[in-house]
């Protein structure tokens, strides 16, 4: 689903991502960890096609990003630190906007389903400005799932989701494995994500320093392993 | 000088002066690069000297 080779992105002289190789198979869920400034968010933004790599090749969902970014975007769901919704539009208007941008055929039915799923159906006609942080992030979750993405890219999802949202997300990641959807979860809380991830990738100074399976391992053991390498 | 010759001279003087000033500016940058190259060479020389010192020291032990 994702194949990166020798990926480099520099801000000026500083290489935030410095030659990263990464391969993701369908149904795989990767916990991407590392200290602040290790380059994990930059890597996620590269895969989300929000940044352009200066060298290396990147293939997402079968599309070479250099020339097929837009085709790949249709299959990517990106959950950022910010909810990426307009505060002065209602929850439904925001989802309608994204539904049109992604060209969803059953837009209105899909929006009702998702609003119900994230528990915001009752507030769907209120502007996002009146929402709590957790509610806004649940709306962001609905926004991310709206177009049925095959690749989920999550940037510190547990930092801003409330308990209910986190449970929804964990359920989604659980289902992803069965559906053959892949996910990359950037995180600080390795033991939290280890429960739903199959692989741990650790970055340090722009490079991948550890890439191993966590299948069947105890979350605390994964945590210790992370602290070892990072 | 008659019939506004001073204006013609002034116009050409301005052109020559500003173009020359531009060339001098570019030259100043080249000179700076040259100085940096020299500084770097000195640094390299010093480093080489230190390295040969430590090597001879290792030989003795």
């Amino acid at each position, binding site marked *: 689903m994702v194949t990166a080779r020798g990926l480099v992105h*520099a*801000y*000026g*002289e500083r290489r935030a991502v410095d030659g990263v190789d990464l391969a993701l198979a369908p149904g795989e869920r990767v916990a991407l960890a590392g200290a602040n400034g290790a380059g994990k968010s930059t890597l996620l933004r590269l895969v989300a096609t929000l940044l*352009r790599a*200066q060298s290396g090749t990147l293939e997402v969902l079968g599309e070479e990003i250099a020339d097929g970014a837009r085709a790949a975007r249709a299959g990517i769901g990106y959950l950022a630190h910010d909810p990426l919704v307009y505060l002065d539009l209602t929850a439904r208007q925001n989802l309608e906007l994204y539904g049109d941008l992604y060209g969803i055929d059953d837009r209105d039915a899909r929006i009702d389903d998702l609003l119900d799923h994230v528990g915001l159906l009752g507030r769907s006609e209120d502007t996002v400005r009146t929402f709590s942080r957790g509610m806004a992030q649940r709306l962001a979750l609905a926004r991310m799932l709206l177009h049925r993405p095959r690749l989920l890219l999550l940037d510190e999802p547990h930092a801003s989701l409330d308990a209910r949202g986190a449970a929804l997300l964990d359920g989604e990641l659980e289902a992803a494995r069965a559906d053959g959807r892949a996910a990359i979860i950037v995180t600080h809380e390795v033991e939290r994500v280890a429960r739903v991830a199959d692989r741990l990738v650790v970055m340090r100074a722009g490079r991948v320093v550890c890439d191993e399976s966590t299948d069947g391992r105890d979350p605390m053991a994964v945590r210790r392993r992370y602290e070892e390498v990072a | 000088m*008659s*019939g*506004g*010759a001073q*204006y*013609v001279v*002034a*116009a*050409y003087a*301005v*052109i020559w002066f*500003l*173009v020359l000033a*531009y*060339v001098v500016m*570019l030259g100043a*940058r*080249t000179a700076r*690069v040259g100085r*940096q*190259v020299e500084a*770097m060479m000195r*640094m*390299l020389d010093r480093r080489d000297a230190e390295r040969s010192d430590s090597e001879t020291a290792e030989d003795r032990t």
Partner: protein
Amino acid sequence: MTDGPARVPGQRAAAIWGVLATVLVVVSSIGVFLVAPEDADQGIIQRIFYFHVAIAIASLVAFAVACVAGILQLRTRDERWDDVGEASIRIGLLFSVLVVITGSIWAKASWGTWWVWTDPRLVTYLIVVLIYAAYFVLRSSVEDDRRMRYSAIYAIAGFASVPLSFYSVRVAESFVHPVVFTSSGANMPGSMLWWFVVSQAAMICLFVALLELDLLGRRSERALRRLAMRLESA
């Protein structure tokens, strides 16, 4: 790979163009002052025309080069095109300032006032100076990849604004005033035209020589920076 490039490429080209430009500028200066015939109507003042117009056209060439470099930069994302673009616009801006100054002197000589809003060339070049001065304001407020991309886009948009400014001022002129002064090549005596052509060639060569020199300096700086980084890491 061996050590960083000992010789920066382009030295010979810069030297050749530099010599050519110097020779042509000297020859055309001599020609303009001593050889070319005196204009019947304007007298000696007309001699400003040779460099004034030649440098104006050379500045347009510079902006065109920057526009093409911008297109290529956007296509290849190669920082060398950014160098070409910035160096060209810097020289073009220098030339446009010279056009405004010499034009202003010309206005003083023939109409007794430093500034004439009805002279289209003077007014349009003032606008051109403003357009391309903004290029450097834009560059100084962004960094890295964005700087190159934005500069390239602005070089393209700016080059589109140039003919628009030219034409808008001339449209306005043609309705309000009859054009006060035209010096088109068509009604120039032969030897005047010949010296104008030499001046034009001199100014174009001057542009290319300054551009080569500037690019040479940039390449050296870049090679030096790479060398310094390798030394630090070694």
